[in-house]
């Protein structure tokens, strides 16, 4: 375990270094203002690279991770946006795991037309672009509003309703993924000796599914969680982008210079906030590592309990 953690730590450090190296690639931005418009002119300057990097390292040495464009510490910035995203991720994960397990149970328990089509839909969904589905869902909801459906806020993160809406959108794909994983793991357990034995003893199918199959499939399901998490993260970008949910992904996107562009089409590369990019990417990397480590530890615990 110790070696594993050290290995993870080493990889973590490597990834953060890569992020810093990329984020600080030399871009010399010159800002010029005219009336209502501000232009950023980007030029490549190789000499700057070393300077920028050493400046950044010096700053970290001085105990600061840098500031955002308003001069606020990036950690404060991170706190605000990342906590929103974490809540969203948390709720969406719970929904995904719950719905996913329920759907998997339904799909494996029953063999009727509904279960079969539910399974087909689950598989088909994964083949579709998430953002397109989200757009369509948005359109349907807007259409419902115009038909007199009680309105709620679709965008942003202020209202509970918009928050939940984003969480539901976010959980859409991961729950399908999770359901597929669980279902196929359950199925792979099928036909194993203990099941036949239990069946022979007249154990109810539902009890069998939950008590035996699920319990036995747990380690392999837990091992899939990091992948589901990655799924969730890439969806998070789309969901935050499409619902204007001001979370960590949205903020990263902003920090990369993709401002909310005004009608006069401000240049894309308005501001690039390198320290913000670094700290947010580090945040996501850390999340990935945490989930990975967590899943390994859980697997170990579950496996041990089973063995003992």
């Amino acid at each position, binding site marked *: *375990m110790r*070696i*594993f953690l050290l290995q993870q730590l080493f990889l973590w450090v490597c990834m953060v270094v890569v992020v810093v190296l990329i984020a600080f690639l030399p871009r010399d931005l010159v800002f010029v203002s005219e009336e209502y418009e501000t232009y950023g002119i980007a030029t490549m300057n190789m000499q700057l690279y070393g300077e920028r990097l050493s400046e950044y390292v010096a700053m970290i040495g001085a105990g600061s991770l840098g500031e955002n464009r308003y001069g606020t510490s990036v950690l404060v910035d991170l706190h605000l946006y990342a906590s929103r995203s974490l809540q969203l991720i948390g709720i969406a994960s719970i929904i995904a795991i719950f719905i996913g397990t329920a759907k998997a149970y339904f799909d494996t328990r029953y063999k009727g037309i509904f279960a079969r089509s539910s399974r087909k839909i689950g598989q088909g969904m994964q083949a579709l672009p998430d953002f397109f589905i989200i757009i369509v869902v948005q359109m349907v909801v807007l259409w419902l509003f115009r038909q007199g459906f009680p309105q709620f806020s679709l965008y942003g993160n202020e209202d509970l309703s918009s928050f939940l809406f984003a969480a539901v959108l976010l959980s859409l794909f991961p729950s399908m993924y999770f359901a597929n994983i669980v279902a196929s793991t359950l199925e792979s357990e099928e036909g194993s000796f203990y099941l036949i034995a239990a069946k022979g003893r007249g154990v109810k199918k539902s009890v069998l599914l939950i008590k035996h199959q699920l319990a036995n499939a747990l380690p392999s399901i837990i091992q899939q969680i990091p992948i589901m998490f990655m799924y969730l993260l890439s969806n998070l970008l789309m969901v935050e982008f499409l619902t204007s949910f001001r979370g960590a992904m949205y903020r990263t996107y902003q920090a990369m210079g993709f401002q909310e562009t005004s009608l006069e089409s401000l240049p894309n590369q308005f501001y690039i906030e390198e320290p913000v990019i670094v700290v947010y990417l580090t945040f996501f990397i850390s999340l990935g590592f945490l989930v990975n480590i967590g899943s*390994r530890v859980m*697997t*170990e615990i579950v*496996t041990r309990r089973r063995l003992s």
Partner: protein
Amino acid sequence: MTMSQPVKEPNEKKEILRVQNLKKYFPIKGGVLKRTVGHVKAVDDVSLHIFEGETLGIVGESGSGKSTLGRMMMRLLDPTEGQITFNGVDISTIRQSKIRPLRKDMQMIFQDPYASLNPRMSVGEIIEEPMLIQKTGSSKERQENVISLLERVGLQQEARYKYPHEFSGGQRQRIGIARALSTRPKVIIGDEPVSALDVSVQSQVLNLMEDLQNDFQLTYLFIAHDLSVVKHISDRVAVMYLGRLAEVAPKDDLYANPLHPYTQALISAVPTTDIDEKRERIILQGDLPSPANPPSGCPFHTRCPEAHERCTLERPEMTKMGEEHYVACHLYTQS
């Protein structure tokens, strides 16, 4: 007198293959971190020799390490320890590239006729491949060779354009035999070549193998999991249990006078055609112990009807009990 290995008899028979103190340990990876937590002693200190032109049968339950032994002799697996001498050359540690030319003289027939033929190659390609690798003959010669081999093993020459999935198990095993013969080897190691086949087909294949042995002056190492199969074809039989040899003896000697309790148990299980001959069936108790955690002392003591205290403590050595008859059992050694 105890011996760690059979001593070569002054005999006109030429020894073609010899293994000494051969061991193969597979590491067991455990836990999430895939650390080595133990070893499976698949083959544990086995010594054997095979004379040119004879058929040595190796018998053991599945998991006794007999296939591993066969594969090690082919150097398909690298031994953990010990020596393999082929034709007087030590091949246990030489590099794979140096072994390649030797493979011409040593071929293998595999257990599963379905798995041992590449499903994506035509039968002709399959039989031709060893020749191609050993660069024997021109393309035309090889084709002719393929045809004659096919006919020799009892298949039509059109078969060479077909694919393995179009043949039955017995036919496939014939293809496997034709492939093994294609480089004119001296030794063929048959890794349970008939155990996957239907009983009626088994004898056909065995007969074919016997015919071929005469025609091609082959030496067979014939691995099987029960004694009935090797009864007819073998000259000598070695019995393996849990990675070790229990008994080695000329066939007739072994069947007439099995010494090791395990051999006795095996022989009692062989169905007999002679109704008059009444034999007491010895039923072994319990399962085969895990090779990862073999019993101390004699590995067979957990199931041995004759086990006594010494068996649990001390590992029996190979003891010569007659001409070419060796046994590893405390019943026959003095403490």
